[in-house]
């Protein structure tokens, strides 16, 4: 499962990254590390970006980057 598969309001824990993408470095620097809880806030329709809550702040990222972050519920 990835962050992109969460529905709005669902909480999960980051497990890791699916494959190496350029965005990964910045996401971990912002605190999206294995073991970090996240909550899905909103998904913009038509494959738009998603908004999540992580470590007390709200973060938007594109769907392709959300699909790269593995989670477990």
């Amino acid at each position, binding site marked *: 499962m990835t962050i992109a598969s969460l529905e709005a309001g669902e909480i999960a824990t980051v497990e890791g990254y699916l494959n*190496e993408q350029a965005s990964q470095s910045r996401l971990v*620097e*912002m*605190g999206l590390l294995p073991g970090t809880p996240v909550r899905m*806030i909103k998904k913009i329709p038509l494959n738009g970006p998603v908004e999540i809550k992580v470590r*007390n702040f709200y*973060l938007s*990222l594109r769907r392709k*980057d959300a699909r790269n972050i593995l989670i477990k519920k």
Partner: protein
Amino acid sequence: MTSASSIKDRTGDWIALLGNPNSGKTALFNLLTGLNQKVSNYPGITVERKMGRAVLSDQCQVEVLDLPGTYSLAPESFDERIVSEEILSWLHGPSPPRVIVSVVDASNLERNLYLTSQLLDLNIPVVVALTMMDLVKQNDHTIPPEKLCEELGAAEVLHMSARENWGVKELKEAIARVINEPVNGKPDLPFALSGPVRSSLVHLMEFFKKEFGYGSRLSWAQALRIITRDSVLDGFLQAQLDGQKPGDEQIRDLQKLRDASISELKSQGHNPKTLEAHLRYRWLDGVLNRSGKPKKQTVDRSTTSEKADQILTHPFLGPVIFIGLLTLMFQSIFTWATAPMDWITQGFAILGEWVLVSLPAGMLRDLTVEGIIGGVGAILIFLPQIMILVFFMTLLEDSGYMARVAFMLDRLMTKMGLHGRSVLPMMTGYACAIPGVMAARTIDSWKERLVTILVLPLMSCSARLPVYALMIGTFIPRKKVLGLFDAQGLTLVMMYLLGTVTALVLSKVFSHFIHQKGQSSFIMEMPPYRLPLARSVLRQVSLRSKLFVINAGKIIMAISIVLWFLASYPKLEKTNEDINPIHHSYAGKIGHAIEPFIKPLGFDWKMGIGLITSFAAREVMVSTLATIYNVEAGGKDIVHLKEALLKDKNPQTGMLLYSPLVALSLMVFFVYAAQCMATFAIVRNETNSWKWPFVMIVYMTALAYISSLCVYQGGRLLGFG
């Protein structure tokens, strides 16, 4: 590259402010220096270096450097690169800052302290300013600064709130203390590296130690960071271009060592891209636990901003609200400004009369009335409209709403070859293209940044507003359309829409011809909504107004004076009754010479002169027409420009010269035309080449001419005008 150049001329003590985007660095900078740099609620408002002077105490004054925000010393976008290059220049240059003030948003400790932990490695004393304590106190989880200071190994840690203006005095004292008695950090990294990781990085570490003379802690930190991404290595290349260390040989060695470390770490099952972040966050979690931060999770708690966003970024309601707000903004430009505009018109009329009565007849009086009062007055009328525009734009930014607009529109923008982060630069373009072009620095992908810059001048800036307002106010009737909209306001919205839609369509076209370099992502923090501060909004409005008035005072006055001479001389010996002497003046001759080229667009020679003078600034079109009509009228009275335009007749046919169709054609011309030379100079700077400004001038000129031609000729075929 503007970043590291002015290092050499820096003398004496200086300090630097560093922190995450939107952590309040610039607000603190303003409090420390008494300057008025732009502060807002959007991550990435500051995109360049700024210096100011702060008085810390009677004995201690320092220069203060404000930098763009960044999440890490490994850069992703151009504004972040400015920060990492600046820091390299400290490490390799002769005069590093005496103190780094690490500005930390206290409501997001972990993420903000990540950057702090990188700064602590630089062997420069770090004072941590925990800002936005006003926000934290509401949610009440404060941790004692002394404890945090000890755990981090910082020189000092202080609480403060720039918004409520407390804690600044204590911060100044702390900085002065640390300058007098520097507190150096620990000599080693605060977290341990495992044996295999150590041995994979040790050669890189030794390279930094030996070749650049770094201390042990910094050498390990640079080794950890250079393997995370190519941009860190590029930073060293850039430092070389700026004439600092390292040399060619060193770069080659560095590259080789880096490649070796990366493949060794990978063979051990480590991910070099994320290793640094893992180590630092693990350490920070410990630091915060020991400092007494409550260990409860916060992701399940929803803030007021989140609740507001259920409506404001709702999939359907969100875009509707955004369009509604824009329409309201442009409508208000007309409806709210009417009264103050009338006052200014009357004021200048009274001033003109007074000059007519008090100065003796002659050249000086003619110049003052026809050239200066006529020309400058015609422009200053539009000040209220520009103030209203800037007022709305500032509200949208300061409230935190612009970040949401970027979020909602990212999908649409990427489809058009742009980026969610293109929204703010393009909206800024409604005020002026120049800060807009600079704001594009926050876009992490070069291609999307370039496309944003290329189409940005199509966003109708406030210098076009006087032209639109004059044409609309003169030729579009004041009546209600569909019972709701004002016809004048609606026409203005149409002009803005025309420019905006064309910008989006052309982005799509341009993005086919420009190749992607590197990646593109939209990793953006949504700042909490905050009530805009009156002082911040007023500061923006007064700043823009001042620029506009100064422009009117300098450029427009100069052009009005020159134009007055060109339009008044040579004086004819014998005045022919039928033909006004202005036709034989220099300006008249120039205008008549270009008239054949612009006649197909519906423009006459007067507008032709305006098109030439508007190369200095678009709004000069209005003052040019005003000056010409005043000269033509012979200085007996101040000419009311609207009436003059409505009454002006073609001397040969006796028909009215202008019509709503001509006005429309002129407005469309102004939507597209490449007129502002200052914009192209900035684009040259930002893209490092004359190629892109040239491309812009060509496409915009072609677009302006062809569209105006279609509007005017098409309109005539349909029987208008």
